[in-house]
């Protein structure tokens, strides 16, 4: 992967498949390691992706998650078909949750998912239509100006 080139790959996530939850984020974590991206950046992307993946597993019917890596940034876009979020501002509050007992038994549904995703992202955007679904897009910067990670070296193995 040379300068200016990008990696782009899409993954399918199925709702209610609790045992499979985490497989996409695991795969993405492995891909980012292979690209030689800084470990602290990988951890932030992996946490945000895993929370987003679990949100789909818990609440939506299905989703497409797209990973895009450029020399400047990593972008994760999740578009789901599901019930949507009626009040995004409320859903962004730590501790607010509509989780069922089944979700809580997995250790999720404590109202930390979306705040966790935002905490690990440099850019965070979410839109939702009730009855149709939710679109989440996060960006984690790879350039030096964000002061949080090392520069991305596309040639490192």
């Amino acid at each position, binding site marked *: 992967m040379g300068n200016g080139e990008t990696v782009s790959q899409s993954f399918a996530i199925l709702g209610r498949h609790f045992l499979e939850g*985490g497989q996409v*984020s*695991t795969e993405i974590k492995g891909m980012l390691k292979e690209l030689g991206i800084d470990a602290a950046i990988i*951890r932030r992307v992996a946490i945000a992706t895993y929370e987003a993946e679990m949100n789909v597993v818990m609440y939506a019917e299905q989703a497409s998650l797209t990973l895009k890596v450029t020399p400047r940034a990593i972008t994760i876009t999740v578009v789901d078909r599901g019930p949507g979020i009626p009040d995004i501002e409320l859903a962004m509050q730590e501790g607010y949750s509509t989780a069922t007992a089944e979700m809580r038994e997995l*250790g999720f549904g*404590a109202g*930390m*998912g979306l705040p*966790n995703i935002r905490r690990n992202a440099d850019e965070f955007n979410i839109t939702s239509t009730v009855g149709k679904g939710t679109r989440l897009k996060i960006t984690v910067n790879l350039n030096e100006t964000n002061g949080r990670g090392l520069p991305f070296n596309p040639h490192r193995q």
Partner: protein
Amino acid sequence: MVLSDVQTLLHCRVFSGKDLLDRPVKYGCASDLMSDVLAFSQSGALLLTGMVNVQTIQTAYIAESIGVIIVRGKKPDATVIGVARQKGIPLLGTPYSMYEACGILYRAGVPSTMKCVHEHDLSKSV
């Protein structure tokens, strides 16, 4: 301290990762809420939890925990052990309660990974 010291201190049974018990234990992290682990734990922490399912192992992998200690004598099923093996996560079980297990490790010098208290002004909260 390394994981095998924790195994001795907490009288642990090892379900996976017998060959990984030389991993250093830098911090401890105790929670049944996986999102709290993801939000507040640092890379290299040992996770103590009463939550025994595949997502416990996924969380440990994503949060870069060095291992998982299941408290209160709970036993993971074959699927959970299989995922732990596959992801290279040492999975141990202790008969101690969460409170006792944390107390033993804290007394032995394992600090907390969660820095929540430093974000609050304790003088104002009493």
